[in-house]
């Protein structure tokens, strides 16, 4: 059995990603340079997303230094980015594991309204913990239904969202929904700043770092990628696929409940549709961050950049003198352009680089 030339080339390309010992035929500098280039290349989707974000912010601040570049505007952009970011936290992990969560708006509403309802009966901290536990429960129910029914997550989570909506109104029938006062601690927490940076944004940054490490450096994170890339292969490799999927939905439930609690503090009111804007924004942030909606690839730092971009856009577009209609149109166009660029970068990230190894290159020429 002899392999055809194209077949062996295909095998070689697969091996390009396997850890291999660099033969030190080139100079040390060249080898190190190649390592750096590969590292940058693999992260090109995330880097591209950040470049897109930075370009947007620099451009917008130059265009209107007193409007967009002002402290208050940047603070509110940071806070809204953090809301999208927390809603998209679970979404990122769930999407990487090959799922989707459309129950986010209702989980967020549950977070906000739950805290308002419970804060009248107990101190703030236990109320928050209890609400987060309820969020964990809902996430777990999502995950359990998706894994047990084996049904498309889109419709399962949508159904769960509808059930949550009914449950919130059922519990809260005594008053007009969400009419209670938001606890003062919550308002204070959502609006507090350290120096000039909102506490909530800093918290998001720290959480993003944790999630980044969790996804790339822990067994659970690697399992999440494996499950999303190929569930069958993951199962054969001994990963409990359903358990991993369940965990991702649980994390999503907690994260979006937390976003809801702080959103209630920031807007100082609660209502059943309070999370609706974050349904599609969370998916858009994930996609703009270079996470493929089919699962198996992506990163939370990409989503971080995506969330900041979306928040920056919704603050900047009205400053261009656009009315609501044009903002909608521009928002759509930016998402399309961003997705198109991110797709190009994904190609770049998976493209094998030419080798610095002279011997190998000669052998390439022989074929």
């Amino acid at each position: 059995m002899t392999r055809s030339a194209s077949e062996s080339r295909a095998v070689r390309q697969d091996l390009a990603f396997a850890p291999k010992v660099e033969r030190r035929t080139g100079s040390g500098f060249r080898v190190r340079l190649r390592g750096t280039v590969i590292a940058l290349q693999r992260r090109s989707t995330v880097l591209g997303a950040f470049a897109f974000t930075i370009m947007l912010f620099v451009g917008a601040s130059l265009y209107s230094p007193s409007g967009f570049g002002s402290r208050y505007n940047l603070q509110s952009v940071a806070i809204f980015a953090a809301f999208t970011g927390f809603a998209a936290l679970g979404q990122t992990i769930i999407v990487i594991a090959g799922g989707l969560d459309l129950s986010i708006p209702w989980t967020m509403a549950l977070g906000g309204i739950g805290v308002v309802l419970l804060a009248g009966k107990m101190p703030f901290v236990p109320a928050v913990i209890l609400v987060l536990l309820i969020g964990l429960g809902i996430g777990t129910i999502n995950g359990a239904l998706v894994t047990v029914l084996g049904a498309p997550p889109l419709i399962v989570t949508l159904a769960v969202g509808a059930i949550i909506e009914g449950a919130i109104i059922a519990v809260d029938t005594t008053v007009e929904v969400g009419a209670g006062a938001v606890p003062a601690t919550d308002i204070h927490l959502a609006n507090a700043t350290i120096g000039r940076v909102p506490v909530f944004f800093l918290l998001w940054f720290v959480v993003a770092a944790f999630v980044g490490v969790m996804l790339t450096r822990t067994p659970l994170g690697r399992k999440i990628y494996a499950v999303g890339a190929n569930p069958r292969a993951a199962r054969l490799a001994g990963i409990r696929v359903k358990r991993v999927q369940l965990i991702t939905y649980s994390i999503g439930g907690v994260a979006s409940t937390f976003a809801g609690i702080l959103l209630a503090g920031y807007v100082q009111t609660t209502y059943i549709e309070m999370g609706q804007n974050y349904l599609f924004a969370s998916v858009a942030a994930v996609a703009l961050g270079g996470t493929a909606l089919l699962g198996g690839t992506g990163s939370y730092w990409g989503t971080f950049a995506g969330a900041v971009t979306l928040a920056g856009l919704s603050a900047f577009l009205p400053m261009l003198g656009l009315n609501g209609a044009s903002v909608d149109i521009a928002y759509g166009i930016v998402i399309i352009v961003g997705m198109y660029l991110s797709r190009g970068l994904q190609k770049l990230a998976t493209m094998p680089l030419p080798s610095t190894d002279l011997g190998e290159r000669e052998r390439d020429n022989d074929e």
Partner: protein
Amino acid sequence: MRSKRLVADGEPGPLMASRPSELGVPWVQSRRHLMSLWSGLSTGSQVMWPLFVTMLVIYFALEPDGLRITQLSLTIQTTLPLVLVSVAQCFVLLTGGIDVSVGGVMALTDVLMATWLRGGNEWHIVLIVIIGLGAGVLNGCLVVVAKIPPFIATIATWSIYDGIALYILGSPGGSPPASFTTWVTGTAGPFPMPILLLVALLLLAWYSRNTELLKRIISIGSDKERAHLSGVRVERTQFAAYAIAGLFAALAGIYLALITATGDPTVGDGYVLQSVEAAVIGGVSLAGGVGGMGMAVAGSFMLTCCYNIISELSIPSWVAPPILGVLLLTVIGLRSRLERRELEHREIR
């Protein structure tokens, strides 16, 4: 031996054709034949039909007036926009994609109907249909040519179409020509127009089952690779599915403008998720490859039935979403169980 095999497979063999029917139904020869007819249905239909019939029985038992022709035509009239938009959604779901932008197309065509058709410009309705088709073509371009995932591409175009609708008509208002609205809500001879439209749609659904295009769409939905290998032009077919979705969403918007006799730029928002829910309840698979126009029609009427039953029982309206959620989960759960059983059955064979 051979004729026995044929009976087991449910096909009326040459020997059976002359045999008198056991069950009194002329086209069902035996109980076995009935069973095989049943198992010949897709799992989606097996779940959908009993549920649909039960819901209809409950509804008409609670509200016997609902059977009167005026009431019936009113119910159909209020459901038709959902029917049209879920038919639109169904075509894209069949390819394994999803079209979130149907809401945007509905809003756009709705406001165009309310603002464009004044003073001798009634023929512009043709342009509006073409614009809907064009919106679908743009979705197709983004998904097929630019290879953006359907979900995110149509979120973006939804925002764009909604924006254009808002640009044309800032707040609810305007009105389509009165001649159109009276035609659509009136009667043709003894028959109310909505019933005729529904019958026309059902005929189209029945006709479409055996068309080449629908078969191709279903084949790429069930397995792109195999469809490609058997000569289906995958990209072109996908493109067609999105274009048809745009067309039907436009029809939904046009019809909605005519029955409400006004335009509203936010009218599509409520229909986006409902169209998916209706199609799924009707038996269309979200993974693609299973379903048809008829299922989307049935699913929409199931949703309406569900809401009508709730309002008949005069229980508070907040019960509706969770009941709908439970209904969705039941349908999905039953279907995946049936599918699993069928799969096991096949493997044992």
